[in-house]
């Protein structure tokens, strides 16, 4: 018996119809978020409280895509004799992500840790002006910043840890000296607990 004409087509379409109703088993991007390493350079988050408007990031940016506006504010003097102090107030902090080249220099130069990388990447826009993220949007990204990865055991200690350890060692030495001093005469010793706390942290 000769096969019916169009049998193959019908068979193919039947497969299509059958699979159309099933859920897909692929676990890929739009259904599942990719697992990105914490160092991944996706978007920059701003922690505004840390920003002192030193303009280092805006100056060091290789294509100058950070816009900062600020003004000076005079704080009234605390006591009548003291001078009035001025401080910088951030008016605008914006990063133009249509220009940004994701090099991370701004984050590297920031002396007060106000900028952070976040691996988020979902911010394609239909209007190019919306790619300039103003400070509120940059702040939103801040909440997606992951903790940095632990360093390789052979790595040099990060300078923050090294500095903390130095202080702790100094305090421990001071406490030990005080204890020795306390052992001889009955003097008041500074509490050694504070040094230990430092070490723990």
């Amino acid at each position, binding site marked *: 018996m000769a096969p019916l004409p169009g049998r193959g087509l019908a068979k193919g379409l039947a497969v299509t119809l059958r699979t159309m109703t099933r859920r897909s088993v692929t676990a890929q991007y739009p259904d599942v978020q990719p697992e*990105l*390493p*914490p*160092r*991944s*350079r996706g978007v920059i988050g701003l922690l505004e409280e840390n920003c002192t408007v030193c303009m280092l990031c805006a100056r*060091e940016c*290789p294509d100058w895509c950070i816009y900062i506006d600020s003004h000076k504010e005079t704080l009234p003097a605390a006591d009548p004799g003291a001078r009035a102090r001025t401080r910088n107030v951030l008016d605008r902090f914006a990063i133009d992500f249509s220009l940004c*080249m*994701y*090099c*991370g*220099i701004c984050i*590297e130069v920031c002396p007060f840790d106000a900028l952070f*990388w976040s691996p988020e990447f979902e911010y394609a826009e239909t209007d190019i002006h919306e790619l300039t993220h103003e400070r509120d949007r940059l702040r939103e990204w801040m909440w997606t910043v992951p903790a940095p*990865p*632990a*360093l*390789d*055991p*052979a*790595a*040099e200690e990060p300078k923050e840890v090294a500095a903390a350890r130095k202080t702790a060692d100094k305090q421990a030495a001071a406490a030990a000296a005080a204890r020795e001093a306390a052992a001889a005469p009955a003097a008041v010793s500074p509490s050694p607990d504070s040094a230990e706390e430092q070490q723990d942290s």
Partner: protein
Amino acid sequence: MRETTVGIGSGAENVTELGTSDMVLNIGPQHPSTHGVLRLKLVLDGERIVSAEPVVGYMHRGAEKLFEARDYRQIVMLANRHDWLSAFSNELGVVLAVERMLGMEVPERAVWLRTLLAELNRVLNHLMFLGSYPLELGGITPVFYAFEGRETLQHVLEEASGGRMHYMFNRVGGLKEDLPAGWTGRVRAAVAQVRAQMGRIDDLVLGNEIFRGRTAGVGVLAPELVHAYGVSGPIARASGVDFDLRRDEPYLAYGELGDVLRVAVREEGDCLARFECLLEQTHVSLDLADACLDRIAGLAPGPVNLRLPKVLKAPEGHTYAWTENPLGVNGYYLVSRGDKTPWRLKLRSASYNNIQALTELLPGTLVADMVAILGSMFFVVGDIDK
């Protein structure tokens, strides 16, 4: 090459209407058979190419001029973008030049890590071409395997540097930061995985009769032409010019890797030899990466970068640093007048010299072979035009 002579009657060659005239054919700048925006102006006599002229400049972005307005850290960021397939090697050349000007000694750990990352980057670059070259010849499968390997390696590189293509991990005086914990183990696994997959490209492409038929004996590049045009890298070595900076003028830690570093050389100089060189080099690079990992495991803990002055100024003078990039010799001529920006930073890019040989290589071949020859020249258009 098979030639068919079609009889068109006696004396036809003298009759203008029947005699053929040359045809000028533009390939590119946007053409599926070229990767990137290289334009070729061919003069054809029937199917045969009479003369060929690569028209460059469609990707000229003036990077050298932009270098002059940026300080050394900012340059690193721009330098990795001209040859986008070997970003790490490009960063390396710039920082090596600046470090030499400053007389800087980079920590040992940084040197070995740089070597490792440069070799991983070389594998990434070669995988791209190992996949795209068969694609240009009509085989669509290998590129999927090649990109599987690329994704594996890109993932570990992203974990360390944060970027998939433009790592921005080099700094003057070392690397940006140290590795995350456990990274070396994951690199070792990734290298092993890529090595296990390499066999598929060996079998699928190199053992393929059609592939061999289209590449063997096609586009033979003579060693004299290699010297005349300054061709370098795997293309030069496929023509028997045994020159590899990693061995002949070792930089980074290559001097200590002499027992692992085999330089792939072929004598034939045809498209097949160029492909074989690239493939063998990929295997060698994977071995080198493993050797680097072994050494890094045995190194004493230490820093990966030097502390730099707040304003980094190269002293007045000039220097020339060259590195064996995946595609050939890249040179960086740095002239400084003591400012924080270079007065001039000239790039000698491998692809630019390599494709110039096309003017000699293409005439006399058939149009169908043009694709095979062009693909086997392994160029990146950004590296040509800068």
